[in-house]
C-alpha cells in the first residue's frame, strides 16, 4: 500500500468505503421516507381533528354560564396551514356540535350535551370560548 497516494486513491480503501457508503446512504433514504410518511400521513390531521373536537366539546360541557375559556390551537393551525386549509375554516360550533377540519376530506364532528349559547373566536393561536345561557327563541 502506498501511503503517499492517500486513502482516496487507494484501491483497497475504495473497495471498502464506497459500498459501505452507498449502503448507509440507501438506508438513510429509506429511513427518511418512513419519517416523511409518518409526519405527512393523512391520519395525522384526522387524529388531531378528533382530539380538538372532543377537547372543545368536553370543555363546553364542563363549563358554567358566564365562563370564558382560552384553548391553545396553535398546533391545529399549523396542521391546517400545511394542508392548505384556511385557518378561519378550521372550526365551527353549531347546533350542539363541534366541527374541526384540518385537511381536505371533511371534518370531525362531536356533540356536547349542554344547552348553552357558545360564542367563539380565534385570536392569535388561542380559541376563545364564551359560554352563555341559552336564549329562548
Amino acid at each position, binding site marked *: 500500500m502506498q501511503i503517499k497516494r492517500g486513502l482516496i486513491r487507494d484501491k483497497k480503501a475504495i473497495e471498502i468505503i464506497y*459500498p459501505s457508503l452507498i449502503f448507509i446512504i440507501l438506508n438513510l433514504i429509506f429511513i427518511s421516507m418512513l419519517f416523511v410518511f409518518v409526519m405527512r400521513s393523512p391520519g395525522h390531521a384526522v387524529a388531531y381533528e378528533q382530539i380538538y*373536537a372532543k377537547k372543545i366539546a368536553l370543555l363546553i360541557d364542563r363549563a358554567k354560564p358566564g365562563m370564558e375559556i382560552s384553548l391553545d390551537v396553535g398546533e391545529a393551525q399549523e396542521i391546517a396551514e400545511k394542508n392548505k386549509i384556511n385557518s378561519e375554516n378550521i372550526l365551527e360550533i353549531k347546533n350542539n356540535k363541534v366541527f374541526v377540519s384540518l385537511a381536505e376530506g371533511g*371534518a370531525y364532528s362531536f356533540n356536547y350535551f349542554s344547552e348553552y349559547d357558545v360564542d367563539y373566536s380565534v385570536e392569535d393561536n388561542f380559541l376563545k370560548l364564551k359560554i352563555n345561557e341559552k336564549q329562548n327563541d
Partner: protein
Amino acid sequence: MIKNFFKNKKAGEKLLSIWWLIVLALVAVAVVAGVLIYYGAELNTKKIEAKILHERIYGCLVEQGVIRQDFIEEKNNFNIFSKCGLSQKILDSENFYFKIVLSSDEESFENIEVKKGKTSIEADCDVSEGVVAKHYAKCLKRNYVVSDFSKKNKFKLFILTASNQQGTKISDSEYNYIWG
C-alpha cells in the same frame, strides 16, 4: 471504480441480499401498520362524558346536601333538561342514558324515578365494568344521602349516567353545507 464496485462480492452481499430487503420490507410494513393503527384509533372520552354529566345532574339537583324542592314537588313532571341546562335533543338519544332515583325510608313518600335516553344502555353498564368493551357505554353510578330544605327528612339519591358517544367524520360537502 464502478466496475470494481459491482464486481465486489462484499458490496453485492450487502446491497442485494434478499434478507436485507426482507428486513427493510418488514420494517416498512410495521411502521405503516403502526401509523395507521395509531391515527385510526378512536379517542375514548365516554368515561369523562359520563362523569361530567353526573356532576352536572348532581350539581343541579343538590346544593350543599339539600335536594331541590321543585324536584320533590313536581316529581316526574320536573323538566330536568330546561332546569339543568341540558340538551334534550342530544341526551334523549341513542348515545346517552341517565337515571335518577330519589327514595326515602318513609312509607308515605312515593319514589321519584327519572329515566332519559336509551334505556338498554343500563344493562351494558354492568357488562362494561372492569372489562375492555370498545363499543359499550361507559357509566358512572353513585348513591348519595340528601335532605330536604327543612333538613328533617333524609332521602337516598341514586344517579346513574352513561355515555356511548362516538364522534363522526363528515364529508367535505356536508361540512360546506354546515358553513352555509
